[in-house]
């Protein structure tokens, strides 16, 4: 009885909507991007025409920088997604990365000099790829282990810092981070 029922019913699978249609992934070969300092990016493509004042926003700023980047117009409306910045041509890629570095600034910690506790405030002395820095955290829990050796730190002011892979740090830094997270 139930079998007949099924046969009368066309495959229900087809009726559900296609999830991936929600995304508008841009063709990297079709994109040409350059910076217009102070006004975001200028994007040229056969599909979109020429757009200026474009901003870039990463979906996964901590775990997948450079991947799944959203392009938004000046009003914040989404234009589309660049799946992988590495698939753009060299000039476009440089433009996007430079813009990204400005619009979504997360320096990388390359060395940890010291971690101390000043009146219960954890203080980190670090070298980043953007220079030396002293971080004051709100609490010890603000050092987040994101899995795969990736560590993300947010200081009391809300600035983010990244250690992409703790095992790549020098042993002294590793020791310090591990005993303070």
């Amino acid at each position: 009885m139930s079998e007949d029922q099924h046969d009368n019913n066309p495959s229900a699978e087809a009726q559900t909507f296609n999830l991936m249609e929600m995304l508008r992934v841009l063709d990297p070969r079709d994109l040409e991007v350059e910076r217009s300092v102070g006004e975001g990016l200028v994007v040229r493509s056969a599909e979109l025409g020429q757009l200026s004042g474009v901003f870039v926003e990463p979906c996964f700023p901590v775990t997948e920088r450079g991947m799944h980047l959203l392009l938004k117009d000046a009003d914040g409306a989404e234009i589309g997604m660049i799946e992988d910045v590495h698939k753009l041509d060299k000039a476009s890629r440089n433009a996007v990365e430079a813009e990204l570095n400005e619009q979504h600034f997360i320096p990388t910690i390359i060395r940890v000099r010291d971690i101390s506790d000043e009146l219960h405030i954890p203080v980190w002395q670090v070298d980043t790829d953007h220079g030396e820095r002293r971080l004051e955290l709100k609490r010890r829990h603000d050092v987040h282990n994101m899995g795969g050796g990736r560590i993300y730190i947010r200081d009391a002011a809300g600035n983010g810092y990244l250690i992409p892979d703790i095992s790549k740090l020098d042993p002294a830094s590793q020791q310090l981070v591990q005993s303070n997270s």
Partner: protein
Amino acid sequence: MTDQRTQIESPSASYVRFNTAGDGPALGELQQPLPEGLGKLVRQELGPGERLIFSFSVDMNIAGQYALKWLVLTERRCMTWAETDDGYRIKLEFSPEELRDVRLRDMRGNHVLFVDTGGGWKHLLRSSNTTSWKLRAITKVLETVKEQGPGALRNVADIELKLPDRPVCKKCGAPIDPRLGVCLACMNKRTLLVRMVKLLFPYKALVVLCLALMVAVTLLGLVSPLLSKWIMDLVFVPAIKGASAAPQTSFWYRFGGAGSRDLLLVFGGIMLLMVVAPSLIGALRGYTSAWVGNRIVVDLSNRVFSHMMRLSLSFYHHEETGQVMSRITRDVQRIHMFLSNRLFNLIRDVLMIVFIVALMLQMHTKLALIVLAPIPILVVASEVARRKIHRIYHMLWRRYAAINRFLSDVIPGMRVVKAFAQGRRETGRFGGIMDRVFTQEMKATRVHVTLQPIFGLATGIGQLLVFVAGGLMLIGGQGEVVTIGLIMAFNGLMYRFYPPVMDLARALPEFERAATSADRVFEVIDSEPELQTGERTIEMPPIRGRVEFRNVTFGYEPDEPILKDMSFLAEAGEMIGLVGHSGAGKTTVINLICHFYKVNEGAVLIDGIDLTEVKLESLRQQIGIVSQEPFLFSGTIAENIAYSKADATSMEVVAAAKAANAHDFIVDFPEGYDTLVGERGARISGGERQRIAIARAILKNPRILILDEATASVDTETEEKIQEALRRLIAGRTTFAIAHRLSTLKYASRLLVLKEGRLVESGTHDELTKLGGVYAGLCEKQNRLAAIATWSE
């Protein structure tokens, strides 16, 4: 006629055929043989050729007094018999032809069965919750008789009685509480000890090594009292009194003469060895036993946790979270302490005692017997203490659990506490709990401090006896040879003898602690998942979405049915709205579709397959739920969305979030999809949580979708966004939605209206409004409320 008589003489044969074993339905406890006295009376009542169908007792009489009341059903009549002080009395009797109607009313704590045999309702039986299932069974029988006529009685076997299938203890055969899963009568301390020891089995080799090292240390420990004896008798005494005072022959003379320096050096050397070797061996043993112990903690914790994952939700329905957590941590820790420490010490202590007693007896039997005389006092005292201590420690454990329970209750509810300014009261309650812990701890301490002096006394008396009795024998010099060395050795042995005895006495309460912990841990491991997952073999095929409830009766407590005889059919792809007042059973319907619980009667079928037959995982993989207060685990938002599909790509996660209208607020967080949520993470509003949960459900791409008040606690604008997301999600799937706001259900293809656990109306919104029934009433109320809301704005 004669035939009939012979049948009735033997009680078992007087029942109709299907009751005999292996034939017809398993009537189980419903078929109770009549007691001697009643059996005789009933037999006198029976007419020629009249046979018994079955008889059973319930635990209450009509007045509500606890007393056995019997129901006897024959082919020609139904009788009830009450047990009174002067025997059995027939209370009610009617023939199937007279039966006009039957009605079972479920009341608080008891249930009453009425029959109408002409002339209005009459009480037939009354029962507490304990035996109410029997009332249900007989009601079914009588209803069938009413519908099909008296002939139905001849085919009682064909009536589906839906008797509870209760788990039975494998050892004693008694029915056991399905929620407990353990037969309390068959659980004893000895089996607990055996089971705890069995945990060591995987590490046999290491355990044997530990034991060997321990025996070595124990034996070495006994050498030094002997050495002191030899030094005294072979070196010191001869040195003072001359060689004639020494024994004539000795093994040790081959190293040097009596009283010589060489002999002293040999003994000195052995003594040094005796000091060094035990600490080395002891360290090795300590390390090995700690390794084994910690392995067991890991094994046991994993076992308890994985078992808890398999248990059905009813387990968590009956247990408080604090207690369950305490089981994995504290109780396992106690078992570890016992196995890695106490058990080995216990064996060492016993060995030590045995060796010392043997050595003493071998050296001087009479003195040994005198010196060991106080031992029985110790044994008796420790046995008395043991009983007392067990009770005290169980209480203590419960009081510590009370602290956890209190905290896990109050701290998550801090907003409520503060909002109602109840801080002072909660502080007072906490203080009360701590006071009770203190009192109980002190009780335990009192038992300890009273025990200590008893052991002290016994030790003192033992040593006194060595010197006085030994001395008298030395002075008297009759018969047995008592030397100074012997007295020294005995004294030394006595020093070594009492610590293990005291340890043993102390080990008992610790064994008690470990045993109560083990009791609880094994209780979890032993509790059979109610859903009997192990025996299921059918994988749920890809679901098309046809969901059917067939005469489902279900309650979380066996005797409080929430759903009563509910039947409905949802075709694949339909969206069904469940409507009704709170407590009407909407959420219960959903719990049963997910098969979180087993139905008491009837069946839930998906695509014609009874859910009790399919593997749970294969079923639940195809069902998605968005609930009122979605739970987010600690981790990133991306991880939370991907929880339903571990291998989802980042693109899929983003696409799902977009479909759920969650994408925009997610990328507005500084860390986007990498934003951490959960206890230590960012604060996420109810509406945002909801949409993350919808994204989770979208990504899972379930065949059956359940929306449990998915839009209950969000504002109108957010609700619109969620509604839009839900419309995408619903497309092409069978959906069940609960909503208080009836407007939320406007896309439903059909509404089911529940009232007090029964399906009262079903149809589209328009049909139901026209009907003017329960649904129309609900709508009207909501419209009035909405009008007030608009007006007050």
